[in-house]
């Protein structure tokens, strides 16, 4: 539900301008240094890294569409248990590539909007759609009846997103800001259990966000290594710390325990590990200088 990533995404045909904000203008007025830095960016050749990330995002989106289709089919067939099992894993593809997936102003809330977000925008419950509405049906109402149209719409939206993503041009800012944004997502909604308030499958999203950030780090690794090998070592260590903590909450089938099973001590430890990762991760911008 974040619009800030918009800035860093360029789409052929100028599709996405709403909510773009004035960040860029403000910065320019504020500080001419911004422009200089942008100039410098063009001198750093990241073309290999950018296309590697684009490749990754497209694969995630392919898989997201396939798994969403599977989920929707189970849902429409009235297979409650089957749909529940397919729910969290399908969403992980979306969460992993969130810097790109969430950059389409209307589509992100339609696919991933929570009731609280919709209401915050002054909209009524009838405008609520997407995964979380079906989550509500499955876990709260324990039914699929009456939600078939919502399921159809979700699949249509997923297809539209898939089509749009093909045109995305990945920029260095998208990757670098995106990695930190993924962690911020974890810190603000996953760690508080506010993302999946009915299914409590927050740790799946948590894991996927971290994997998304780690992928960006991996792609940039050699460039970072050349600039600051200590930073790379620190990031390796901090990613491992988060992964190790998350691994303590896996289930026998390779999934994750319910958010409700976590103690305050657990969530505090996870939040601290994410913050300690976020601080060095925010330094990845040094490769653009």
């Amino acid at each position, binding site marked *: 539900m974040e619009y800030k990533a918009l800035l860093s995404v360029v789409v052929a045909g100028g599709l996405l301008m709403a909510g773009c904000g004035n960040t860029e203008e403000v*910065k320019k007025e504020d*500080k001419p*240094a*911004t422009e*200089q*830095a942008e100039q410098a*960016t063009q001198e750093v050749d990241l073309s290999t890294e950018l296309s590697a990330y684009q490749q990754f995002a497209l694969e995630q989106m392919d898989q997201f569409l396939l798994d969403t289709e599977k989920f929707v089919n189970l849902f429409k067939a009235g297979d409650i248990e089957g749909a529940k099992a397919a729910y969290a894993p399908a969403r992980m593809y979306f969460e992993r590539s969130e810097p790109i997936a969430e950059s389409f102003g209307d589509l992100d809330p339609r696919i991933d909007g929570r009731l609280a977000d919709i209401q915050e925008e002054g909209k009524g419950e009838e405008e609520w759609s997407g995964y979380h509405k079906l989550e509500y049906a499955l876990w709260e109402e324990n039914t699929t009846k009456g939600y078939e149209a919502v399921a159809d719409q979700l699949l249509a939206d997923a297809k539209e997103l898939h089509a749009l993503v093909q045109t995305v041009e990945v920029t*260095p*800012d998208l990757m*670098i800001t995106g990695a930190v944004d993924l962690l911020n997502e974890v810190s603000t909604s996953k760690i508080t259990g506010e993302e999946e308030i009915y299914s409590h499958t927050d740790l799946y999203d948590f894991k996927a966000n971290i994997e998304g950030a780690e992928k960006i780090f991996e792609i940039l690794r050699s460039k970072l290594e050349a*600039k*600051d090998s*200590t*930073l790379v070592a*620190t990031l390796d260590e*901090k990613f491992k710390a988060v992964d190790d903590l998350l691994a303590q909450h896996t289930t026998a089938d390779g999934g994750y325990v319910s958010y409700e099973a976590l103690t305050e001590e657990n969530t505090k430890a996870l939040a*601290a590990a994410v*913050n*300690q990762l976020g*601080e*060095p991760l*925010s*330094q*990845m*911008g*040094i490769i*653009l*200088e």
Partner: protein
Amino acid sequence: MTTSNDEKWIDKKISRRDMLKLTGVGVAGVAVGASGFGGVMKAMGYNIFEPVADSTTAKHKVDFYGKHQTGIITPVQTNIYFASLDVLVTSQKELQQLFQQWTPLMVRLMNGEQMVEMTTNTRVPPGDTGEAKGLDAAHLSLTIGAGPSLFDKLGMQHVKPAELKDLPHFPKDQLQQEWTGGDLCIQACADDPQVAFHAVRNLVRAASGKVAIKWSQAGFNAFPAEGGTPRNLFAFKDGTVNPAITDEQDLHKTVWVDKGWLKNGSYLIARKIQMHLETWDRTSLKDQEATFGRYRDSGAPLGKENEFDDFDIEAKDDKGDYIIPDTSHVHLARKSDARMLRRSYSYASGVLSNTGAHDAGLLFISFQKDPAQFIAVQNSLGRMDKMNEYITHRGSAVFACFPGVQKGSYVGEALFNAL
């Protein structure tokens, strides 16, 4: 600081990128010279080989360097942000490096300067969080202390002073874990709440992955225009019997440790004391004054005229009753015959969710040569203290605050030299 570490550190080939990073974390106070390397740093306006000096031009500035740390006998400022930290580092060496990293940053903060110079790369977050930009030093003082648990965690039990241990349980204590203890403390006091908070925020941020905040508390004090002792939230003057901060002899007797690595340091005791304002406010003035043993308005001991009049707790009236009741705060505290330097701040942190009452009280802070001084007073107050009806002790911590820092040295050097 051990020389071998320095050499290894310097021998390492350091790229320009590494240097930029070093300025970011501010590793100063490393007293060595290497041609070329220092030049680049100087060109960037920040020389890591020379310790940061106390500014001679900064407004409202407290000097960092000296025999004692600041924030102990520094004239009391209007605001505090107190943070108790857990260390995440696992070795003595990492702890030493943290203190070396912090030292020049503390000087800069107390100069009212930014943590680092602005970089031109807008693709990384700024090195200073920025909210103190445009504000002056605001008499910022920074006091760093070590809790008993630090010595156990990092295998330093052999240098842990015998006096440094968790306080005993006192009658009526209702301590909560989330407000108790800590491996390290940062006491930031300033005449501006944002300057004090900024200092703690940035020191903790610079130590990401090395420390985590265990608990923290903001507090305030207000001073009458004509000067004098500040009042707490019960409206009584707090700190009347403090030793004068200019009386060196008294301070040596009361505040400064005179042996071992902690020489010229002091023990800080912090107590988070909830004050039940609603019940206090429905207490008659007579009872309020009998609780403290002083008059509310003047601050004078009961039966006396002026705040600083001497008093005899054994004095009785015609009927044979104590003039200063033997259940009053003043009577019991004086009876213990122990003194300390109090430097407390009031707090008001919203509303208690379970009762709807003010979440307000006193962040009691005292400095003493030996925690036994505080323990004697607190034991004397014990169950007798009439004040207990109106207060509850919720948090407690004790820290050994290091001696002052000389230019070229770093916070806590005496401890590491003793290892």
